[in-house]
């Protein structure tokens, strides 16, 4: 459990997509998210879907695995669809459910919006499937670099993210340890009325917080002792490099967008 947390959903592989610079991936996804809203015809939707599926295939991750990762959001997608069915009142009345009239515009709108939603989720999950959290952190630090000019604490933000990534599994292990220790003293987390169970959480949280603060104090001290004095003058071991494949990807992406605009009505 703790193992899956630190690497997120990341599935290791050496596919073309995996090897892309994380900044390339983040930028393209950001642009994709914007351009999805420009799709307004069946052809343009089909085109974007083909592109997204193409990328999914290129990751070499099994499609059923990717779709299973989307299970929690299926509900949201269906909910969006139904909402649009009910709320939109364009076009002809097709039929009625429980005296709610369903319009043809509603159906079209519902399909379009939930499909858009699906594409967004699919593409962003492809990012987390092919990029480790620490790569994403590095990419964010690098992409936000210009914000340093307006004194935005970019380096600190990235450091905060990486330390959280480092300590999440540790704290998970600790939670497990404490909950076992408390269970052995007779605290019951699993049965009984909700009120009792919530109360049982308290003896779990208190030691957890105490130890987290202790850790934070020790860590700050260790970091200082190891010469940490902020982002200034630091070099980096993990290096991001734009390669030929990144430029190639951007060109392909540009072509995809041009075609998208041709397919619009």
């Amino acid at each position, binding site marked *: 459990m703790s193992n899956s947390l*630190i690497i997120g959903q990341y599935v290791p592989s050496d596919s073309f997509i995996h090897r892309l610079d994380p900044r390339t991936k983040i930028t393209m996804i950001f642009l994709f998210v914007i351009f999805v809203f420009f799709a307004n015809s069946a052809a343009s939707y089909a085109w974007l879907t083909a592109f997204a599926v193409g990328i999914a295939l290129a990751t070499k991750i099994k499609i059923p695995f990717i779709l299973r990762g989307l299970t929690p959001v299926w509900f949201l997608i269906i909910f969006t669809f139904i909402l649009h069915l009910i709320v939109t009142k364009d076009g002809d009345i097709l039929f009625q459910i429980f005296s709610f009239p369903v319009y043809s515009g509603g159906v079209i709108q519902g399909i379009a919006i939930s499909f858009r939603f699906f594409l967004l989720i699919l593409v962003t999950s492809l990012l987390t499937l092919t990029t480790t959290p620490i790569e994403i952190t590095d990419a964010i630090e690098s992409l936000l670099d210009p914000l340093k000019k307006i004194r935005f604490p970019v380096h600190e933000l990235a450091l905060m993210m990486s330390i959280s990534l480092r300590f999440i599994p*540790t704290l998970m292990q600790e939670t497990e340890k404490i909950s076992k220790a408390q269970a052995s003293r007779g605290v019951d987390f699993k049965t009984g009325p909700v009120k009792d169970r919530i109360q049982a959480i308290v003896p779990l949280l208190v030691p957890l917080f105490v130890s987290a603060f202790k*850790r934070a104090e020790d*860590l700050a001290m260790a970091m200082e*002792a190891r*010469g*940490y004095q902020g982002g200034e003058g630091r070099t980096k071991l993990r290096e991001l490099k734009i390669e030929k494949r990144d430029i190639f990807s951007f060109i392909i992406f540009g072509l995809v967008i041009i075609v998208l605009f041709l397919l619009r009505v």
Partner: protein
Amino acid sequence: MKKECIEFRNVSFRYSEEGPWVLKNVSFRIPADEGVAIIGHNGSGKSTIAKLINGLLFADEGEVVVLGTPVTEETIWEVRKKVGMVFQNPDNQFVGTTVRDDVAFGLENRGVDRSQMITAIDNSLRAVGMIDYMLHEPHRLSGGQKQRVAIASVLAISPQIIILDEATAMLDPKGRKEIMHTVNEVKDQQGLSLLTITHDLNEITQADRVIVMSKGEVWLEATPREVFAREKELQEIGLDIPFVAKLANELGKVDVPISQQPLNHEELLEELWTYHSNK
């Protein structure tokens, strides 16, 4: 005269205004390229001494001088560049998300060039036998393995002073021997000074000198042999000497002449063998 490396001049310290004095008028000198061990019971102020050396704490009275520089708010960064320190708890000093990133942390802070960094990381991980764990996350390492990584991080920055605060407590006897051997080798090669803090008297045999702390005061400053000879008094301040030393002391009492306090099995054996053939 040898160059002074670390010097405590009448240092007193307490954690809070009204609190008890944790260090009371502590003075000692550690010359460059010497290995010194600090021993003492729990709470005798050993870790506090270590933190005073690289400016994590400041003396309330007296002065701490490191490599000729008094440790003050202004000089801490200069001092910390030269001091490598390993703390007691290996988990809370692991900064990186992987072993490699953690060893890199100190190097990154010092602005070391990337290519040099990679060589330094490789060498130091190899030295502590952790090269195969380069990409492991900390939660997939045992306590002892984390301690090895912490020691590698210190070796990587090639400091002039290394402070190990019970840094091998979680290693098995064999691992501890190996690591201490590695550290001592680096010390001799690069002529740096090594300060080992421990409450295990087995560990002090490799030191040139031992500082015994008790209740925040320097109780004794002597060679390991001299320390082992004072079994009774050590026991009174809560320290137990190794079996070999005890046996030698007992033999001394029944008139087996032991010419010098043995530090290990081999030396004791040598003594007994000499005694036997002279009889």
